[in-house]
């Protein structure tokens, strides 16, 4: 479970996701990308993976900090146009945000890795040893 603690408009996103889930893909009308910087969190056995869409962002425009059970990311992008052009249509946004994601389990903050590639940030947060599943050897009595 991912707990957001920031924006009330997230409820609309949740509704969008619910509608997407009940509509079969083929009959859905194509819609526009709703907003920049979409963030998702995956929970696997070994690690959490956070994925954020940050088109046009350079690594130096991104700030990441990680604690025992949270991650914070801040980014700022300004859409700039080359000089001498007249805009005919403008849909892309500049964005600036700070977001804190609380993780449901402890992570090994020392071994967190982050990669920014093709405008997508992927952060891998290995779970702390204390919350990883352990196999118990059963001994014959």
């Amino acid at each position: 479970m991912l707990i957001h603690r920031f924006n009330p408009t997230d409820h609309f996103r949740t509704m969008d996701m619910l509608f997407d889930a009940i509509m079969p893909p083929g009959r859905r009308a194509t819609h526009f990308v709703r907003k920049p910087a979409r963030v998702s969190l995956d929970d696997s056995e070994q690690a959490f993976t956070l994925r954020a869409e940050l088109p046009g962002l350079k690594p130096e425009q991104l700030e990441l900090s990680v604690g025992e059970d949270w991650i914070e990311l801040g980014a700022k992008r300004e859409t700039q146009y080359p000089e001498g052009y007249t805009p005919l249509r403008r849909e892309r946004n500049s964005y600036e945000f700070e977001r804190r994601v609380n993780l449901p389990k402890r992570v090994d903050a020392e071994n967190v890795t982050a990669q920014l590639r093709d405008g997508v940030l992927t952060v891998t947060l290995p779970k702390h040893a204390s919350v990883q599943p352990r196999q118990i050897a059963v001994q014959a009595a």
Partner: protein
Amino acid sequence: MSTQTTETTTPSTKTVVHPLVDVLENEREFLLLADLPGVNRDALDITVNGGQLEIHAESETLEYRRNFALGDDVDLDAVEARLELGELEIHLPKRAEAQARKIAIQG
């Protein structure tokens, strides 16, 4: 340049979305900028056909599709594109005035 919305009937497991774009113009060219996060070069197709510019791209999670109607003033042979940091830049040069006025007389 005007936009057209497309509805896709192709069955795909990925959600199909229209990428967000900016269109700019100066005396020499039109410049189209599109956000395509998660798309690399191999997963990007740009087609110019019958006065239509079509962008099709796929990321791990999404399928991006969008069509644009091009004006007669675009020099289709000189279209150039660049993809960097999930941002696509398409340069659509305008035909030179002289070229536009050249009329071939036959017979």
